[in-house]
């Protein structure tokens, strides 16, 4: 059980000692809370009119039906050192100032290199033509739209909704019933993680199956 005397360091989104730190928007998936409801998948597809065959977020289940079954939602993780950005030959993938890894579909040539570079399988391609040529890449945009005029029909058609510009969080995190999927600035997300870890106990037991619902 948690030690009530433990002080949990809490950092502001503005960074240590009040100094400004660049925003880094991140996802965090608490695998001990994910119940594989699929709400995030449905919400994403509905909000962004995701093409058929593409899953911008998907729930992966390990040890299904057995003791220790674990579910984890896997969207684009918007890595700080994104391998997809590193390998894209035409710089169609880029980091936004807020840390979101964004895609320019006008520039993308559909080579598929990012698909292999990504450890999470985030980049995906729609069904190809009869000659095997695939379209341009599609992936989770963090509900931040794309390099088009915000809220324009073109942006919506090509990239989906732009909730970030409205000051909202991605749809998947917004609808997550158990708050297994949380999104926001990395510092704020880290604060949530620290509080959950403190509530569940210390060391390896913090992530034990017994702690998922028995502790906090």
């Amino acid at each position, binding site marked *: 059980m948690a030690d009530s005397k433990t002080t949990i360091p809490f950092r502001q989104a503005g960074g240590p000692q009040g100094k400004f730190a660049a925003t880094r928007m991140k996802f965090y998936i608490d695998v001990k809370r994910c119940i594989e409801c699929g709400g995030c998948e449905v919400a994403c597809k509905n909000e962004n009119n995701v093409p058929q065959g593409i899953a911008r977020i998907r729930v992966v289940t*390990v040890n299904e039906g057995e003791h220790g079954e674990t579910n984890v939602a896997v969207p684009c993780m918007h890595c700080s050192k994104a391998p997809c950005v*590193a*390998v894209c030959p035409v710089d169609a993938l880029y980091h936004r100032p807020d840390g979101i890894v964004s895609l320019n579909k006008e520039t993308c*040539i559909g080579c598929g290199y990012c698909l292999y*570079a990504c450890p999470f399988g985030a980049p995906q391609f729609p069904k190809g033509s009869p000659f095997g*040529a*695939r379209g341009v890449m599609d992936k989770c945009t963090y509900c931040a739209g794309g390099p088009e005029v915000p809220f324009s029909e073109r942006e919506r058609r090509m990239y989906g909704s732009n909730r970030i510009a409205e000051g909202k969080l991605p749809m998947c995190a917004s609808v997550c019933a158990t708050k297994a999927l949380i999104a926001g600035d990395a510092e704020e997300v*880290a604060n949530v993680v620290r509080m959950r870890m403190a509530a569940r106990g*210390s060391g390896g037991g913090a992530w034990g199956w017994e702690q998922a619902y028995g502790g906090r």
Partner: protein
Amino acid sequence: MESIVLMQTKWSQSLHVPLYLFFGGLASGMFIVAAVADLVGIKVPRFGRLSRVVAIAAIPILVLAGFFLTSHLGKPERGFAFPVFFTNYESWMTRGGWVVGSASPFIVAYAALWWFGVMPGLRRTLAVIGIPFGAGLAMYTGALLGGAGFVPLWSMKYLPILFLNSGLTTGVAAAGFSAALVWPWLREPREGARPVIAWLSVALIVMIGLELFELYSFMTYLASEPGGKLSAAPTGLFVAPIGSRTAYEYVTQGALAPWFWGGIIGVGLLVPLALTLPEFLVRRWAVPIATVKFALVLIGGFMLRWVIVHGGDVKAPLPFPPQSWPVPGVPPIPGLGG
């Protein structure tokens, strides 16, 4: 700590990638064989005739490589215009565009000089200068895969050399195949093919031996799990070679095992090696046996690319839950772990 290995089988259902890797390596190997034969042909004229056959035969192979390379793109026209659109030089695809773009003119110009039978001095100069470019083309195909980073099977340490060797092996095989089949159609004396094929068979033995050694070294490296246990890796948890043993098992014992052992090792390397014996013992059947042998090596070369590409479905294991991920900028909290 559990780990998840994400598979991406949807991607690898296309044959385009293995085909352009194979044809690209084959074209470069054929060019190098033609260049070397041309230089040897200064003293031994029949090798000069072999060089002509192989150099010209390399052109349709190069065209096929280019076709499969660009046809799988979502925007093929931008692939052709890569000097304009490829701006990220950190990417091996951009670097490779220049490798292909610089090697291809050598291969085409060399074949053109043979076709028109002019300027032998310039032709041999192109051969000498072009050999490193051809080798670069073969190696680049391995570096392209190795640059992906999170695919344990695609080792930057082994794939470039393996693909170079395979390119040369298939180049020698294609040279022999061309000599056996095309020689009479080019109005060359047929008896000139047999000694050339014999020398190519000897060269093939050496190349097959090298390739077997490299495959053994590569698989041993993967099986040793060079990335260490997941819990022991302090940083770079998702970077290959983490998960190498998983990839090794997938290739040698899993779904790809029949293609690896049967296609690459058996059909592509050991059976051709075994056929060398009757080829040299039964002279009457030497050319037909050699033709079959060279064809098997070509099949094995394609199988190598096919297995490597499909083996790339296995990504580096993702350690969920991320209990060893440090919270950025925060020292470990006493009593709460890392």
